Every structure is written in C-alpha cells, then in structure tokens.
C-alpha cells in the first residue's frame, strides 16, 4: 500500500512536469491557433540558461531561474514578431513547419555552446525530503507540484478576469471579431509566445533537475512527451493539460515499477504514446477538448 502511494506521489510529480511542458503548447494554440513546436527549443534553452546562471555565474538558483525565464520569454517574443507572425494565418501547416524549423535549429546550437556532455544542475533542493505517513516526498517533487498548481491557478485567473486574458480568448475564438473590438492580434500573439517561452524555460529547468534526466543533448525529446499529454487533455484546455499530464505521469510511473521485464526494454518510454493511441481511438478530441463543429 505504502509502495503504491509512493509510486503515486512520484507519478504526480512527473505528471506536473509533463503538464508544465504541455501548458506552453496550449497557451499558444489557444490564443493564436498555431501548434508551436518551438516549445521544445524553449525547454532546452531555459535549462541551459539556468545552468549558466546558477553554476557558471554562481547566482542563487531562484535568481538564475528567473533570469532564464525572462530571457527565453524575450527570445520567444522576438521569434514570433520577426518570423512566425508573418505566416501564422497563412494556412494550417505552414506555421507548424516554420516552428518545426526553429525547433531543429536551437538544440544543436545549444550543444555547440554548452558541449555535448551531460551537465549537472547541482542540488538546488539538496536531498531533503518530507515524510508523511511512510511516504517520502523530495523537496524537488514538492517544488514541481506546488509551482504547477500555482501556475495553473494564475492561468485560470488571468484568462477569466484580466483584460488581456479575455482578449486572448477572444482572439482564439474569432480573430476578426476580436480585431473589430479593438483587440490587437499582434499583442495577443506576442504575449502568448512570451508566456509559452517562460513556461518552457521553467519546465526545462525542472526537467534538468530530475534525477534521471539531467542536462544534456536530447532534452528536446523529453519536451515531445508533452504531445501525448496534449492529445489526452485537448489542445486548447489548460485544465486538460494538467489533468492529462497527471494521468500520463501516474500511469508511466506505475509502468516503470510494475510492468514485468517480459515487455522488453524501453517499454516505459512508449507508454505515453500507447496511451495516446488508445485515447485517439476512444475520444479523439481528448478529455477536455471541444469537438470542432464547423460551418460552411
């Protein structure tokens, strides 16, 4: 029983991480309609910048995180303003391909700057743990879980009550009507990319402090794990992203421990993708996505 609870807790922590990764995709998709693959590159950039700030320049960890979040957000805004905005309304798949092009540029550049060795982020939280009735939670897991829920709450409030948040929703719903109401689509697009960049940088940092992952080449492949989560949660629902992330995280964590070796090596790595295929079968619009009803 305790063991299962323990697995559940690590699953929730992993799930929150996946949710953070997925939220970045959701923000951009929700307000600009672009499926932004560059998100994976933001994750890589964020992780390496935090590393530089914390380990090379010796800044306190949280300052380094703030700095990297800010820098990546600015880079994201610049990319949107200079490149992606020009094609964002052309058709469905030109923007996907453009963001895809940007995605494959950035990780090799990072490898060129920081080298292809595994780097260690150090131990920002140390090995301290919190014990609740036999279940131990590391402070890192706790930080991931708490920050995910804080971010989700902030999102909910922002989209629901702030002027800009409402403007973003309006732009997503009907770009022309929003324009007619005086909402600047440029501002909305840039803002959403900035938010996505910040989220990506934060998620990347958290990913890089995970025991098994670390900081090294291939980090962008972990960002791709957000894709099954998005399918589960629906592309345009922040709450769906979080619940989808939790679901995938918990199932994967149980698979790591409980699946027998007979399934062969690397089975746990494909669990999210298998889950995704099953969901595509049963409920293609995801748990929280809305079925698209189109008019001619």
């Amino acid at each position, binding site marked *: 029983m305790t063991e299962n609870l323990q697995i559940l807790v690590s699953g929730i922590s992993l799930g929150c991480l996946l949710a953070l990764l997925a939220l970045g995709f959701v923000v951009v998709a929700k307000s600009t309609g672009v*499926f932004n693959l560059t998100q994976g590159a933001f994750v890589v950039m964020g992780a390496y910048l935090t590393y530089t700030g914390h380990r090379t320049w010796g800044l306190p960890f949280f300052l380094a995180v703030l700095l990297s979040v800010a820098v990546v957000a600015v880079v994201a805004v610049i990319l949107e303003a200079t*490149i992606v905005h*020009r*094609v964002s309304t052309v058709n*469905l*798949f*030109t923007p*996907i*391909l*453009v963001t*895809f*092009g*940007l*995605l*494959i*540029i950035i*990780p*090799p*550049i990072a*490898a*060129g*700057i*920081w*080298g*292809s060795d595994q780097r260690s982020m150090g131990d920002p939280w140390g090995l301290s743990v919190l014990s609740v009735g036999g279940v131990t939670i590391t402070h890192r897991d706790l930080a991931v879980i708490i920050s995910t829920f804080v971010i989700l709450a902030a999102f909910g409030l922002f989209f629901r009550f702030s002027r800009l948040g409402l403007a973003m929703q309006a732009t997503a719903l009907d770009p022309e009507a929003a324009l007619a109401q005086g909402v600047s689509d440029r501002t909305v697009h840039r803002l959403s990319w900035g938010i996505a960049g910040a989220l990506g940088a934060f998620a990347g940092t958290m990913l890089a402090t995970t025991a098994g992952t670390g900081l090294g080449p291939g980090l962008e*492949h972990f960002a*791709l794990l957000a*894709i*099954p989560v*998005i*399918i589960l949660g629906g*592309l345009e629902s922040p709450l769906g992203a979080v619940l989808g992330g939790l679901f995938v995280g918990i199932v994967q964590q149980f698979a790591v421990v409980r699946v027998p070796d007979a399934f*062969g*090596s*690397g*089975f746990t*790595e*494909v669990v999210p*993708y*298998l889950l*995704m*295929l099953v969901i*595509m*079968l049963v409920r*293609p*619009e995801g748990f929280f996505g809305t079925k698209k009803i*189109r008019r*001619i």
Partner: protein
Amino acid sequence: MATDLSVPAGSTRPPAGRTLPPLRLVSTRLGRIGVALFVVLVFAIPLNMTSTYWLGIMNAAGIAAIAAIGLNVLTGYDGQLSLGHAFFVGVGAFVTQYVGGIHGLPMIVWLPVAGLAAALIGAAVAPFALRLRGPYLMMVSLALVFIGIYVARNLESITGGNEGTIVLARATLGPIDFEALTLGPLVFAREQGLFILIWALVGLTLLAVANVMRSRSGRAMQAVRDHDMAAEVLGVGMMRTQTNAFVLTSFLAGVAGGLLAVNLQYIRPDSFNVELSVQYLAIIVIGGLGSLWGPVLGAIFVTLVPVVVDLVSNELPFMARGGESGLNTTDLSLILYGVLIVVFLLAEPKGLVATFGRIGRLITSSTGSAGRRSSTTNRPDTA
C-alpha cells in the same frame, strides 16, 4: 498501386472521358522527350562518373527522393503533415532483411513485399491517424516512430536488437545482379549498378505518382487538401481519399526502405528516428510541396548539405576541433536543415521547383523575342 492507375481510366464511364484529359502514362511530346532523356541519363551518368564517392551520394539522394516522393503524396498533395515517415521506411528496411536476407528471396519478391508490408501497416493505422485534421496526424505519426523503434529493438531475431543487423538481401533481378553488374567484358562497380537500379526506380515512381495525381483519386486528394468540406460536398469520400494517400505514401516509404537497407548493407532500429522523418520533411519543403520534381530536387539538395558541411567544416571557426567545444558536422547539418526550412517557407514557399522555374523563365524571356518587358510582366504571378 497499379490499380489506382487503371481504375479511373475512362473505361467505366465513357461519357466522362471527354472532359478528362486522356490518361496515358506520358501525355505530351515534351513529356516523352523528358522520359527518354531521363532513361539516357540513368545509364549515362554512372558510366561516365568514376568517383564511387559521388555515385554513393547520388544513390543516397535517389533513395531519399523515392521516400520523399511518397511523403509528398501525403503532405504536398493531400495536405496532411506526418512525422512518421521514418517508421514506414524502417518497416521496409527490416522486411527486406527478413524476406531477402533471412529467407534469401530475390529482389522481385522483397522489393514489392517491403512496400506492401509498409502499405498494410499504413492502411491499419490510417483510420486512427486520419480521424482528426490539423496537427493531430503529426502527433500520432510521431508516436509511430517511438513505438516502431521499441518494437524493432525487441525483435532481435530479425532486427538484431540495439546493435542492428547486416543486410544480406541482394539487388538481383533474374540473372542481373545490380551489385556486381557485368556487360560483356565490362565490370561495373557496386555503386554504378545500384545507381542504375535506384534512379530507374525514381523514374518509375515519378511516372506512377504523376499519373495517380491525374486520376480521380489523385484529384480527390488535392481537392481534400484545398477545401475538405467542398470536396466532400462534391462527393469525395474524405476518409477513403486520405486512406488512399496514406497507403500510397507508406508503400513508397517501404520501397525506399528496402533500397536503403540494400544500399547501406547495415541497419539498426535507432536510425529510423524522428531526425530521419525531419530530413524527409525538409526535402519536400525545400524542393516544393505538391510538385512532382520538388522531392527529387530537394533530395539532391538536402543530401548534399552534410557533404558540403564536411567539405567546408575545416575552414569554419566555430566548429568543434580536438576537444574544444563547438559544433560538430551533424549539428551543423541539422541547423542548416532548420534554417533552410524556415527561409524557404518565408521566402519561397513553393520551393526549389519555383526557383528553377523562375530562372528558366528569365532565361527564355531574355533570349526570346519578348525581351526585357515580358520578364517584368512575369514577375507578379511568380512572386
């Protein structure tokens, strides 16, 4: 895929035959001259090129071209984005090793079987993958690549597991062995024989795809791409059309995979990864989406990227050298793919095909009687 060529050939509905252009393999005189020229080049280039290094590169480009022509059917003509192409290429490659290598069957068996196996899997996956439009096919196809690598790693008897396997399948057609071609007293290098085989198949693939795209099902694909709902109102079955495109795409990927396996003689599961899919996507975007020759031009161009990077990498200041940090050649190639994709989509969305077309028009208009004026009047519709 041969059935797709013949089904709408007018014989079933004679009255419609008048509105459709006559379906022949090659419809114009220029086209026939082109085919003749292609056939001549397929034999002339390897016979006159002695560098096996460059022939090897051309062979790799030809195989990439077949795979890219396949992906172009789905992405360029049918408007669906796929990152799973490497999976189907991988299926073709390992089926080739199984049928041609382990069971030792000749090429006339393993090549079609490689294509058909990939096409079958494509047909099985299509109904799930095509349920939604937009970016969803891309995501599902990404899952295919990861699941494919997992399955291949665990099928050690065929794939050799993580270490991969040597490919024993031979490129033989009856008495002709393309890997050790002899003609009377002439003995050809392996690359020369394979060049003839690979580029002949590129030609056949082009001919087949060009004709499928002129047939009803090909036009249906383009109609679905341009406006799915309008197409459906006109009586085009969406699901069926897209499944057709998906199956044809997978078939060509399988064939390309078979050739890839024989050309490389060594394959491992990890090589059929997302990066390979990326490469095929880069090829069709750079070459020109939805154009016949785009994938071929793109394949030659993209295959040359790492070659050129290798050639110039010693001159570049920011490359990694002897323990120093810096870019390695694989990374630089990846960066170039990315930059090229972005630049082409922003500046030349119709790809190299459009660039070549423009250059061609400039030449004809400056040498022709129309002179300078026609080149300026041409500009608006080409931009």
